[in-house]
């Protein structure tokens, strides 16, 4: 259990750092999607299925989609 | 009831005038005069009354109006000058822009000043004080151009002063729980010396700014010279005297003479008299250097304020009488001079002393008025200025202040010089060509001249009339009653008998006249004779009023720069650059803004963890 949680947290951190560091905005958006996805899984393991569902559908899917659309309107590089 | 009606008429009348002005200008002029005159009458009726009425309450503090000899004395001076200025304005302001606004602010300022002297507690005092400040600001800025800068200077200094006063007032309130002047007077004897000094310094700053005490006088010269002339008269003769009223209030009404003299071990009085002496000397010589008639008069006002404060701050009965009487006289002759210069400006379109001259034949009544005014200003016997200056000198000598007396004397020499410059450059000498067709002042301007000239001479010959009242005032402030008769003061501490002087003067006059008679027939000497050795000179080119006193300027100029003004401008410049630098904190870069937030958070965190501040 602790291994799963730790690895998820590390994934989240890595995603977050990547989202900040990447200069390609599309990749950064995907990286932030990774954070949400890991968070959703984490929530599930922490016995919060309601939050996990919300996080998965909103954080991982919709927000990423909105970001991607926004990037398409502007420039892809930072 | 009378006091309330005075204030109601004053304030209501101001606004009514404004509203009426939108409909008809003749009606507005009529109403403005009517209100001023009726206020004068009402105030006259209130003579000798004493009383106190609570008329409203503000933040659980009763607002009190009170009338006594002191406030009556100031009120009548205020109202007379305003009335005369309003009458003067009738022709002066004709055809100018925003005349409704002008009258509104003039009357509002007047009402506020009446409110100041009639208020019996410090809240209403402060309220009226501020109304006076901003209405005067709007009028000073009225002439546009340089007036804007003058107005700015005035209002900023005046706000600084009133903030000091606010602290002082609130401190009194928090200490004594009341702001009624009478009650504070009863309570203040228990105060510690330091506290009293603290309060006094705050009030000194507040009233010093308004009365243009050196070194916080710098607003006055531009403000007086840039304001519309009738309002310059009001400014110089009464608005700045509100500071004098404040001084009397705080030094004698609140503290009382005994406390005042002991303030800071007597050093407070010492510093105040010293400041007053400086206020006499420096501005006098600054006045000498001015080429703008109104600016000259403005500097002279500061110097005269110095005399008044000197008289008041000595702390003896005679000094106080002298100071208050000089206040009254200064009201008369300074109003007269400003109005006269206003009339000249009205007729000739300029007040530059270098381009005027020879107007004696064109504007004789104005000349007589200016003559009376300058005589009063110098203190020539048989004018009221003589009496008050006499009293002040007498006080200084009696109380062993040789240096102060010397300062006052030097001030008087300077006064003679600049008064002569004023009268010569305007009325004597050569008439410039472009002024050939100057018309005399209109009747509505002459009326104030005549009234004020009469006042100057009348009270110069019969000083007992005002002195009696002033004596009552000083008596109500806890001094001994002096023995006053219609010709002067009969007491041994400062005998003054105008009859003697009158007699001496009359004898001298007869002697001079006699010699004048026997000295042969009148020779008319043309200007060319004395100036160009009889050769015809092209007119207008040799105007010898230009650079009057030039050799003397060269001598005193390096010493009589307005150092304080330069100091303040440097200060303002420094503040402006500081403010620009502060503004640059908001650089528009989002990254920096986020750093600010993070920085703030980390400072808060560190203050606990590292420094353990809270």
């Amino acid at each position, binding site marked *: 259990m602790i291994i799963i949680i730790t690895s998820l947290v590390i994934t989240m951190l890595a995603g977050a750092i990547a989202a900040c560091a990447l200069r390609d905005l599309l990749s950064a958006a995907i990286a932030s999607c990774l954070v949400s996805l890991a968070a959703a899984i984490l929530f599930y393991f922490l016995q919060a299925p309601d939050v996990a569902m919300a996080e998965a*559908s909103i954080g991982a899917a*919709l927000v990423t989609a909105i970001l991607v659309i926004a990037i398409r309107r502007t420039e892809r590089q930072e | 009831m009378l006091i309330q009606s005075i204030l109601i008429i004053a304030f209501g009348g101001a606004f009514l005038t404004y509203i009426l002005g939108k409909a008809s200008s003749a009606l507005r002029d009529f109403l403005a005069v009517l209100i001023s005159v009726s206020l004068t009458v009402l105030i006259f009726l209130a003579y000798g009354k004493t009383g106190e009425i609570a008329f409203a309450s503000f933040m659980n503090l009763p607002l009190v109006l009170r009338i006594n000899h002191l406030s009556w004395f100031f009120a009548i001076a205020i109202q007379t000058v305003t009335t005369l200025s309003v009458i003067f304005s009738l022709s002066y302001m004709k055809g100018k822009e925003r005349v409704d606004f002008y009258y509104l602010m003039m009357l509002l300022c007047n009402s506020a000043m009446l409110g100041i002297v009639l208020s019996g507690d410090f809240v209403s005092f402060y309220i009226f004080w501020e109304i006076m400040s901003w209405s005067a600001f709007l009028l000073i800025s009225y002439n546009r151009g340089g007036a804007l800068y003058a107005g700015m200077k005035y209002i900023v200094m005046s706000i600084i002063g009133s903030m000091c006063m606010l602290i002082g007032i609130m401190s009194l309130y928090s200490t004594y729980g009341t702001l009624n002047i009478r009650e504070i007077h009863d309570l203040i004897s228990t105060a510690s010396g330091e506290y009293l000094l603290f309060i006094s310094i705050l009030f000194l700053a507040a009233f010093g700014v308004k009365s243009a005490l050196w070194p916080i006088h710098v607003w006055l010269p531009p403000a007086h010279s840039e304001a519309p002339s009738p309002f310059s008269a009001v400014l110089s003769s009464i608005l700045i005297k509100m500071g004098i009223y404040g001084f009397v209030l705080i030094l004698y009404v609140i503290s009382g003479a005994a406390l005042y003299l002991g303030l800071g071990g007597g050093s407070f009085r010492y510093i105040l008299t010293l400041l007053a002496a400086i206020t006499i000397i420096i501005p006098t010589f600054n006045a000498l250097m001015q080429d703008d008639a109104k600016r000259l008069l403005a500097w002279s006002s500061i110097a005269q304020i110095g005399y008044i404060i000197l008289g008041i701050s000595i702390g003896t009965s005679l000094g106080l009488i002298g100071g208050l009487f000089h206040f009254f006289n200064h009201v008369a002759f300074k109003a007269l001079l400003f109005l006269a210069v206003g009339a000249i400006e009205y007729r000739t379109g300029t007040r530059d002393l270098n381009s005027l001259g020879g107007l004696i034949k064109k504007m004789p009544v104005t000349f007589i008025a200016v003559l009376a005014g300058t005589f009063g200003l110098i203190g020539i016997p048989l004018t009221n200025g003589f009496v008050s200056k006499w009293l002040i000198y007498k006080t200084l000598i009696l109380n062993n202040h040789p240096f102060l007396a010397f300062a006052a004397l030097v001030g008087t020499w300077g006064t003679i010089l600049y008064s002569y410059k004023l009268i010569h450059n305007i009325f004597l000498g050569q008439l410039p060509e472009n002024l050939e067709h100057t018309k005399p002042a209109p009747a509505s301007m002459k009326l104030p001249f005549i009234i004020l000239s009469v006042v100057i001479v009348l009270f110069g010959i019969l000083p007992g009339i005002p002195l009696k009242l002033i004596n009552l005032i000083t008596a109500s402030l806890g001094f001994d009653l002096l023995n006053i008769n219609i010709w002067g003061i009969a007491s041994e501490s400062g005998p003054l008998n105008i009859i003697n002087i009158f007699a001496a003067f009359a004898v001298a006059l007869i002697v001079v006249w006699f010699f004048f008679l026997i000295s042969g027939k009148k020779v008319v000497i043309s200007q060319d004779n004395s100036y160009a050795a009889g050769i015809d000179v092209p007119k207008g080119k040799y105007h010898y009023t230009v650079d009057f006193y030039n050799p003397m300027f060269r001598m005193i100029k390096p010493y009589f720069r307005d150092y304080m003004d330069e100091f303040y401008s440097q200060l303002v410049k420094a503040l402006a650059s500081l403010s620009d630098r502060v503004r640059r904190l908001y650089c528009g870069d989002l990254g920096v803004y986020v750093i600010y937030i993070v920085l703030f958070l980390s400072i808060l*965190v560190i203050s606990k963890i590292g420094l353990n501040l809270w």
Partner: protein
Amino acid sequence: MRKIFSLIILIILALGVYICISEIPFGKPGTAVGNYYIEKGIEETGAVNIVTSIVLNYRGFDTLGEVTILFLASLGLGAILATVQNKTRGVITPPSLILTTACRFLFPFILMFGAYIFLHGHLTPGGGFQGGAIIASGFLLRYLGCPQKRIRQSSFVAIESLGGIAFIIIGLLGFTAGGFFLFNFLPKGVANTLLSAGIIPLIYIAIGLKVGAEMAGIIDTLIEES
């Protein structure tokens, strides 16, 4: 320079936060209210899913606020984008047939799944927000798969508004019936059945539709503008 500076500040802050947080005992949550909810929740609200009972009953007012925030987001986005006038549409490469067909095929199922989630919010994990989000992702899929097909913006707006109004009306009905805004005035029913928990399913329907419409509306506005 600035980067170094901000790095230093961040390190200091991190250190400070670490010290602060290290003194806070984690993992021992105070459960003053939580225990009450667990004990009395089902009894008082009739919802088996405690989370739902908290979200919609105990703290229903918060939910109203949150719904409003979503509403605001879409409204604000619409307001800002409505005035920006640059409709330079990029060339859209038509998606492949397989994708289009799959999208069409999947779309109703996704909608149904979303509806299921918000209808069963009081019984199983999930609820209006989650259901709405899933519905919106269905719309997203549809927009990506069949970009030619559009739904009128105004219908989204209407559903949003109606959902919000429905929420408020239910609240006000509770006010008239029980004296409290958002009072659970309907019979609680038998726990673990679909028709239980009083107003909770009704509100969830409103929220589900509203959230779905809002999210889909946001995506629609963005795609419309791009």
